[in-house]
């Protein structure tokens, strides 16, 4: 963690991703993971269409916190919010403290999507965002996510024919650094 500063606050960024020919603009909120900020970061969950929970595979303590993060996420978002579990630092396999199987099982039991990724090498980072966007898009297609609901976290930009623009609040609850 020494090489990368903690998030003090909520970082904000955007990405435009193409899913099934549709351009989806992701608004990504990367919230501070420190316990002391927890009460404050709760206010950012509302209206998120997706959440990425990131732990550090080399530090078990970050993994152990997941269930309470998950509780918060479930309580504060709507049922259709896509939750993605991400084991960061998969480039440091030698220092691994949490097995893939264990995390996978946790994800399966809780109905989360799961992938191991590395913010350092970029492995699976793109995929994680893409998969999240796809899942959100699917939810819209299936009608599970109501675009008209104020807290769906998704906006449709109708001004451009043939082009769906989706706004999407994403939360990355990090116990570790995801850049």
């Amino acid at each position, binding site marked *: 963690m020494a090489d990368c500063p903690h998030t003090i606050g909520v970082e904000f960024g955007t990405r435009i991703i193409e899913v099934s020919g549709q351009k989806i603009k992701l608004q990504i909120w990367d919230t501070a993971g420190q316990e002391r900020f927890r009460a404050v970061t709760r206010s950012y969950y509302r209206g998120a269409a997706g959440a990425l929970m990131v732990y550090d595979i080399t530090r078990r303590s970050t993994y152990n916190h997941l269930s309470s993060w998950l509780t918060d996420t479930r309580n504060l978002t709507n049922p259709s919010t896509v939750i993605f579990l991400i084991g960061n630092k998969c480039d440091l396999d030698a220092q691994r403290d949490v097995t893939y199987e264990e995390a996978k099982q946790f994800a399966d039991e809780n109905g989360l999507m799961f992938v191991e990724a590395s913010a350092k090498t970029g492995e699976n980072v793109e995929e994680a965002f893409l998969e999240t966007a796809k899942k959100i898009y699917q939810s819209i297609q299936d009608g599970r996510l109501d675009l008209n609901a104020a807290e769906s976290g998704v906006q449709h930009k109708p001004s*451009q024919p043939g082009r769906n623009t989706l706004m999407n609040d994403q939360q990355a609850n990090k116990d570790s650094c995801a850049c």
Partner: protein
Amino acid sequence: MQGWVRTSRVLALAEHDNNHALFVFMSSRMPPQLFSDLSIERVLPVDADFRCEIDTDSKHQDEIDVFVNISSRKLKLLFEMVPGIKTSNFVGEIFRAIEVFTKRRGPPPEFEWLHKYASGVGGQRNSGNSLSGMDNPTSDTLESGVEGLTGQDESLTDALLGSPEISVPRQSIAKGATPIAARESVIKYQMAMKEQHYTYTQVLRVYVGTWNVNGQPPTIGLSEWLAQDPEPPDIYAIGFQELDLSKEAFLFNDSPREEEWQEAVLNGLHKKARYHKVALVRLVGMMLLVFVQEQHAAYVRAVATETVGTGIMGKMGNKGGVGVRFDLHSTSLCFVNSHLAAHVEEYERRNQDYHDICSRMSFTRFLPPKGIKDHDQVYWLGDLNYRITDLDPWRVKDCIDSGNYLPLLTYDQLHQQHGLKNVFAGYQEGSITFRPTYKYDPGTDSWDSSEKNRAPAWCDRILWKGDGITQVAYRSHPELRISDHKPVSSLFDSQIRVIDAAKYRKIHEEVMKKLDKLENEFLPQVMVDNTEVIFDTIHYLESQTRDLIIANTGQVPVTFEFIKKLDDSSYCKDWLNIEPYSGFIMPGNKCDIKLEVFVDKKSACKLNSGEDKLYDILVLHLEGGKDIFITVTGTYERSCFGSSIEALVFISVPVREIPVGKLMELENAKEVTSTQDPYPIPKEIWFLVDHLYRHGLKQPHLFEQPGLNSELLQIRNWLDNGSPDPLPGSIHSVAEALLLLLESTAEPVIPYNLHSICLGAASNYLQCKQIVMQLPEHRKNVFLYLCAFLQEVLCHMSDNGLDTKTIEAMTRTEMYFIKYVVQCVLSISGLNEEQHVVLFAVPVV
């Protein structure tokens, strides 16, 4: 901005002698004020290589930026223009200038009038010395503040300076507010710039054939013409003239011959490959057929055909041209089959037909329409009808018979006119090594034996324009004898840019990412010098400040504000003050924020009781951007101020001598169960009252004159820490300390729940007295003690000047609660019953 960065430019369209040029200026300020602000970056002549396209994606959409692609030879520029009437006028003028060029007659202009500007920038193609970025198209992204004007170049200055102010919504993309369509234009442009990185060259064999069939039906096979090469061509473009000389064809453009000849062509194509028809276009007797091998068919896009009649009345289809254009992979191709005016002496008419076809052939399915010149490769074929002049037909035939074509070619009108650039400027033709293709007696290889005895001529020609085209063969096919013309064909090895799908995706992704990155770089960014603000020990009524510096380290102006957290009523705790709590910072600038902690009577009790701590997380929100958490911490030094009467009576030592948790425990205890006997009243009240009683009764303006803040702090320390020394400070300070102590108790001496009863009882002395007697024990003690003290004070009215009226007057000031208490006391003391029971009604804290 260059490359990925945007910069502002001023565009001007200048006219000189009916020729136009686009000037691109850099300006030292925007909008430019003086001519000296401007320097010419580049000058683009509006010539055959000048192209202008409005991004079709963003066309017809209001409120978003207009993207205009301008290219000249290898140079590609993208201008983002503010939508509106000015932009559309300016772009309209550019198109008009292009049209003027296209409709122009005679050899192409040299644009000599531009040379002086070109040398001025030192980097035009006319000078060897290249302006940076000139030969490097990737650095040529431009965003422009655009103003259009036309006029003589000399009048440029005034017109420019007269242009109204232009605002460039440069933040629109940055803020993500620009619709994706606009962003697509940028992506398209960037992809065009990077074309060489994701395309490779594939050389395709292009077969171009032309034949004036003199109205004959296809009674013979065509493979001797179309398929005489060992390998099959990738692309066929086959043109016919005089396909049908019937009136029906001329008047109704309806001909059974179309089908017959198409059938003949299909049968005559090379047998070693399968072909896919790209297009067939016919105007009266002119027909053009384009085929590609089936393997290429999937990569053919944007096929369009067009016809131009230049015959009778200048419009009819007996003469003119037909064209087919399409994109193959990443290369645009255009084939034109024309039949120009006949007769030996009519070469000028032929030149004009050429120009008419050039200017009128417009593929209107594109916006703006594409002309012939707007293609990477153009192949022009047909019966161009140019003759051999000034030579006796017999001499011509002699030369031909001896195979000596060279002297003849100097008399060939097309060679002459082409050399003069009167026609086919920019086109090439291969050297002619075949006999003239006109005019033969049909069915033979013999020259025309009619009375007219026409001189032989190379009427049927094939020319080309564009990069990467190599002619492999140029020949005639005398074996086909049904017409008075012989067919001609040419083979080309043409370089087609093929998109490598994987590389394209990769680069496209990179461009998208880069744009994302840019957009994110344009998000508001600040540096806060300290996100963990730690205060020293905070004492009651003693303010402390810390400075925070917010520096705008981003590229856009920042509007910041400290915002409320979920469920909070304010953006910070009441013991904290943030000044300013919102603001606006320009890039590169800073804003100093002052954080002041001040614990007063409002916040002290909560801090003493542990209900609140000197700890807060501030949320610094950047509008349209991120939030930064700033933690504020400090330690509050507990004090008798802000403690409750009930807690204080149980503390026999100075407040700071008891353990940290003890005070909280006492404050929170509902029923105090202490072994220790409590004091009747808090000792701190006693200290202060006793001091006043002993030293202050005769003090003039007692309770009226405020104390000194520094002395108040000393008194506070004396009370909280305990000291063998006498109570410090003046009488007035001690008096104020007493008022403050009473004001800051967690609850007033008369508890809140009794206030309404007090109001009801305000006019009744006995009821008031009853209420006082029903107060909790320690409060009653305090009340009566204060009452007795005030009686003493009033006994010395003549000295201290305090009277009931003063007290009444003081109730209207901000010193509220203690006065209320004091007045209650006075009223109960019976000095002036009628007057003072009213005071029960005085508003409380």
